[in-house]
């Protein structure tokens, strides 16, 4: 990549492997189709159109690329879940809701390299037989929606979208659909309801697996922005070559987003599993702030279970059980899962010893209480209870037994709800209580020196008074 120059101060870190983010922060790069075409843009679409659709899916399967939106489900495999005897139209939806706290990667693809996404989507649509596709983009990306609409118009004009694409007889229209500020629209069945013009109440699975019964109850493939971009590179490299990137079962590259208490927060595209948590924090992000110690890391978006600084995990490697310290965890799907958390959406939130755990947890609980769609009683009521209990903690008004109540409320949510928001909202509480119980319990006793009094406290107290 010697021929690519990046904007001053925005150069990728030496350990990065820029593929999806190749053109992000690139000097002289813009979002026009002319720029994209100069670098071989849409060549992979042309190549794919010469293949059998099934062969395209086969390459994606061989590549082993796992969904980058949160669940890490293999994309190629998902595509094969469209019922074989299907006679209904098939739809594809790009999930550009990017709303998992800590995640900020799709934003840059959309704003700086929209054609990469459109090319990836067009290839995916060809593979699954979709003639109509939507990009569901969060409302808070108004500029992004405009950029995508302009890019779609350009691609259409050049014959990469629309009727009879490149003379192959393949038709495809892509439209941009804007959300309206609700996190639950990121959940794929909530997203589909929203796209149908309704409240985004998630649907129960089974039977509503989108690949079988999605948009307008037709087979629908929902993939994340980053996942769909990978499709283009898989066609370029071939599935087998692509699978050599990263580590077995954790192939390719992925974008890690780091925020919180590090010197240099930011985004880093790395080969999956080739960088450890310690390297990410201490090397790529310039380490912690002076004099600070690592207290906790949320490794895969706010819903991922927190890991404690200094924690050692027993995980299986081959046939042996080995000890792995927090800093030695390779940033891949399987190891983070083995450590009891998840790689999720790639959003890494670093928390140092200046932070109060009650305050951190309260902030997250307030998010989930605000965002629960309200269909399921355990989620609707439980998320609010968890917020209220932690409101009390930060206000110095906790009561003995509060932490047990908090934990029991959380444990009555997950596994008992329509959608995975139930897990998303209860896992933070379960994990923070499991790993920081002493500190949380200390905060239930306003008399102790550990009780926190700060302006958050006052704010929460004002909320309590309402």
């Amino acid at each position, binding site marked *: 990549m010697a021929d690519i120059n990046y904007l001053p101060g925005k150069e990728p870190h030496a350990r990065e492997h820029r593929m999806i983010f190749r053109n992000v922060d690139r000097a002289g790069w813009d979002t026009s189709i002319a720029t994209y075409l100069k670098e071989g843009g849409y060549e992979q679409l042309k190549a794919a159109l010469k293949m059998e659709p099934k062969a395209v899916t086969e390459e994606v399967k061989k590549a082993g690329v796992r969904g980058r939106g949160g669940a890490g489900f293999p994309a190629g495999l998902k595509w094969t879940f469209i019922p074989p005897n299907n006679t209904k139209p098939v739809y594809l939806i790009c999930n550009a809701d990017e709303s998992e706290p800590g995640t*900020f990667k799709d934003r840059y693809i959309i704003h700086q390299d929209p054609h990469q996404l459109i090319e990836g989507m067009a290839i995916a649509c060809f593979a699954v037989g979709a003639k109509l596709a939507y990009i569901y983009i969060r409302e808070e990306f108004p500029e992004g929606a405009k950029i995508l609409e302009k890019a779609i118009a350009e691609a259409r004009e050049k014959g990469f979208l629309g009727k009879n694409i490149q003379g192959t007889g393949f038709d495809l229209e892509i439209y941009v659909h804007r959300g*309206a500020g609700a996190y639950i629209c990121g959940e794929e069945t909530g997203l589909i309801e929203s796209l149908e013009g309704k409240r985004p109440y998630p649907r129960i699975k089974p039977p509503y697996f989108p690949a079988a019964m999605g948009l307008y109850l037709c087979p629908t493939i929902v993939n994340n922005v980053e996942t769909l971009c990978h499709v283009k590179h898989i066609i370029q490299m071939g599935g087998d070559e692509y699978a050599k990137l990263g580590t077995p079962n954790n192939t390719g590259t992925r974008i890690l*987003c780091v925020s919180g208490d590090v010197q240099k927060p930011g985004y880093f595209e790395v080969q999956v599993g080739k960088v450890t948590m310690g390297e990410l924090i201490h090397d790529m992000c310039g380490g912690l702030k002076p004099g600070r110690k690592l207290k906790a890391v949320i490794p895969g978006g706010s819903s991922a279970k927190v890991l404690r600084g200094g924690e050692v995990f027993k995980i299986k490697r081959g046939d042996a059980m080995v000890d792995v310290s927090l800093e030695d965890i390779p940033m891949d799907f399987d190891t983070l899962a083995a450590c009891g958390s998840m790689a999720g959406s790639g959003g890494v939130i670093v928390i140092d010893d200046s932070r109060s755990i009650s305050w951190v947890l309260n*902030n997250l609980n307030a*998010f989930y209480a605000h965002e629960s769609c309200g269909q399921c009683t355990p989620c609707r009521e439980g998320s609010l209870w968890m917020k209220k209990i932690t409101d009390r903690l930060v206000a110095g008004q906790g009561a003995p037994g509060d932490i047990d109540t908090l934990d029991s409320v959380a444990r009555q949510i997950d596994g008992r709800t329509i959608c995975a928001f139930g897990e998303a909202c209860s896992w933070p509480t379960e994990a923070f209580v499991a790993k920081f119980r002493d500190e949380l319990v200390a905060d239930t006793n306003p008399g102790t020196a550990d009780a926190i009094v700060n302006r958050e406290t006052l704010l929460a107290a004002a909320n309590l008074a309402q």
Partner: protein
Amino acid sequence: MILKANFSVMALEIPSTLEQEIDERITHYPVSKRSAVLPVLHALQHHFGYISEEAVEWTAKKLDLLPIKVLEVVTFYPGFRQYAPGKYHIRVCRTLSCAMAGSFDLMDSLCQAAKIDRSGVNHHHPIAVSEDGKYSIEFAECLASCGTGPVCMVNDDFHEKVEDAAALLGQYRD
């Protein structure tokens, strides 16, 4: 000042360019017109600043729906408002990474600089407006730029690493 739903508005006047834009948007949903509820509401909110009762009825008529099917959408999504915000509507990210980067202080200093009293906001009325009606403000949840906090939006503009509230407001004077 906290704004409550205001239904005493004049009859809706939809300029023909706006209606054309809306009609074009509806064509994006060849399978079901109902799918166009969000885009129609976005277009109306962009034009009028908020979704009035008349706007709900107009949308329902346009899409052959019962008004309740539109209203239930308006009341669910935080992105739709039933009352007029200030000329400049500010959304400050409240979520963890931005909070760690100082978004609560940013909220305070913005309120101070814009003379906004937020003491009455609650879940149902999250928006507070300045005395002169020029600025309004609310907390938003994670705006997907957690590495450059604290972040906020002013109308459709996005701002990162916002440190100086007065300087930010200075860009939105007239």
